[in-house]
């Protein structure tokens, strides 16, 4: 099954046990709004950790009725994150979300060796885009976390993303390794890594997906374009997941999809014990809500 749009994620959580989301440093208008909305729509059960007065102020200003919600008072930012992370590592919560705290402070706690959410895997970011001009949702990695992944890191990023897509119901997602061209070019390292990833996939060293690359962006997402170029590929034109060569390409693609193509986006951090919602201030309310939805749908706990 593939997702036609982000709303399809709702089908994946219907009937299942409701996932518990813990919002660290919850006194944050942007994330709290999305959490309350997801709670009202029965997507998650929230636990709010943070400054109780701050949280209640925001709620009364916005007319959120949180009388039945669990709120844990912890005014110290670092401590509230630590508490949130510990709730996830001790299985009292299924999803971690960032509130009013910097990403690096949150990730430091996630990576804590004693009580963090380490699995031994690399952490990576996945974003799912719904865009009118493509026939299904397209996932993109890594546009926010790994700056210039080497081959080993690219393998880890693909494995994280494929596992996530598998949990979302994609049996064999089609993975395109993006380059500037579809040809192998010794002067473009991304095309060489793409060839290696393809071969490792053929040899079952990267499983549960079909990988092809290098593919230029147009070949990856347009069947006409790949036909014109005479590319024989199961992936070209029907990509489920685009692997970026580096964060600079990824970030520009992400933002151009959002700003120019008016794409809807949902994104989470993978590779930890549980999905992490780490949206930024500049993300729309909708994007934050959809990210929570994605975290709930992809949570395997």
């Amino acid at each position, binding site marked *: 099954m593939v997702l036609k749009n982000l709303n399809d994620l709702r089908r994946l959580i219907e009937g299942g046990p409701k996932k518990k989301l813990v919002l660290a440093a919850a006194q944050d208008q942007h994330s709290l709004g999305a959490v309350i909305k997801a709670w009202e729509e029965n997507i998650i059960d929230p636990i709010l950790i943070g400054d109780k007065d701050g949280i209640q102020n925001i709620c009364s200003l916005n007319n959120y009725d949180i009388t039945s919600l669990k709120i844990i008072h912890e005014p110290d930012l670092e401590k509230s994150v630590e508490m949130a992370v510990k709730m996830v590592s001790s299985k009292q919560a299924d999803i971690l979300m960032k509130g009013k705290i910097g990403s690096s402070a949150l990730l430091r706690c996630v990576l804590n060796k004693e009580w963090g959410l380490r699995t031994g895997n690399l952490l990576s970011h996945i974003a799912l885009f719904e865009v009118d001009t493509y026939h299904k949702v397209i996932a993109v990695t890594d546009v926010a976390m790994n700056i210039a992944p080497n081959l080993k890191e690219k393998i880890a990023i693909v494995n994280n993303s494929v596992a996530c897509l598998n949990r979302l119901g994609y049996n064999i997602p089609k993975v395109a390794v993006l380059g500037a061209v579809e040809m*192998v070019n*010794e002067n473009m390292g991304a095309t*060489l890594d793409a*060839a290696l990833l393809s*071969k490792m996939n053929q*040899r079952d*060293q990267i499983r549960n997906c079909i990988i092809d690359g290098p593919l230029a962006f147009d070949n990856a997402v347009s069947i006409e374009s790949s036909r014109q170029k*005479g590319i024989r590929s199961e992936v070209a034109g029907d990509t489920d997941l685009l692997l970026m060569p580096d964060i600079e390409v990824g970030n520009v693609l992400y933002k151009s999809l959002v700003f120019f193509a008016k794409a809807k986006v949902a994104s989470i951090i993978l590779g930890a014990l549980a999905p992490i919602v780490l949206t930024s201030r500049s993300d729309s309310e909708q994007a934050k809500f959809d990210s929570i939805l994605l975290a709930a749908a992809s949570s395997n706990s």
Partner: protein
Amino acid sequence: MEQKVLALKKKYRIAVAWAQDHNTVGAIHMAVVKGLVEAVMIGKSAEIIKICRAEKIDEKLFTIIEAESENQASIKAVKLAKEGNADIVMKGLAGTDKFLKAVMDKENGLMLPNAVLSYVGALEIPAYHKLLFLTDPAVIPFPDLDQKIAMAEYAIDMARRFGIDKPKIALLGASEKMSRHFENSVDYAIMCKMADRGQIKSCVMDGPLDLFLACDKKSIEIKGVETPVNGDADILLFPSLESSNPFYKGLMLFAKSELAGLIRGTEKPVIVISRSESEKSKYFCITLACFMV
């Protein structure tokens, strides 16, 4: 292979550098008698005539040109080909380095512009169901990616001359898995993708593959590896000279196999064969060269 060449019914001119060698004279004589070639023997004419008489060969079957040294003989042989008076050049008793120096001379040599000098062999192995081409058993010790690509293209070209439209080429390693311990597997993955994308043409390529997966269908079934080469390789590309050379010599010594081979990257076929090789091997090289003119 001999049958195919005889069927060409064409006669080529072959120039032999430093020809006063029993096995070489014998092989050339066989090719002349069968109507494959006309031969120009370059070297110490007195010695060439002496060998002919000892072998009871009519020296008038050959054109004999006098040369004083192996250098001079090599240069003369190459010059004949360069000027269009010979189709094939063959090394006789001349040292390989001296002979190749003449072949590779920038002004008067036979190299194609910017070509990689390499070697492709064709093996007749009784235990294999068809001719097996291999590269490079003689010239490039540790080929880099560009050299491997050139080697593949030369071997594909040779196999296609033998009527194999899309030869199956196996890029050989110790295992079919990608591993950072085997640097060649990286080159192989890159080459396979280049073949996918049409950057290396007219072949079915896979690698890394071990020899069993390359040439034995049973191993494919047992291991369950999916590969388009499918145990039916036409061409084996080796990662190094140290792996390819013992491979073919082992087959010749222990498995009654015969090798014919040619230098590639030249305007015209060039035969370089070890002085110790038999008359028969030299004859096979001549037939192969005729086929590749």
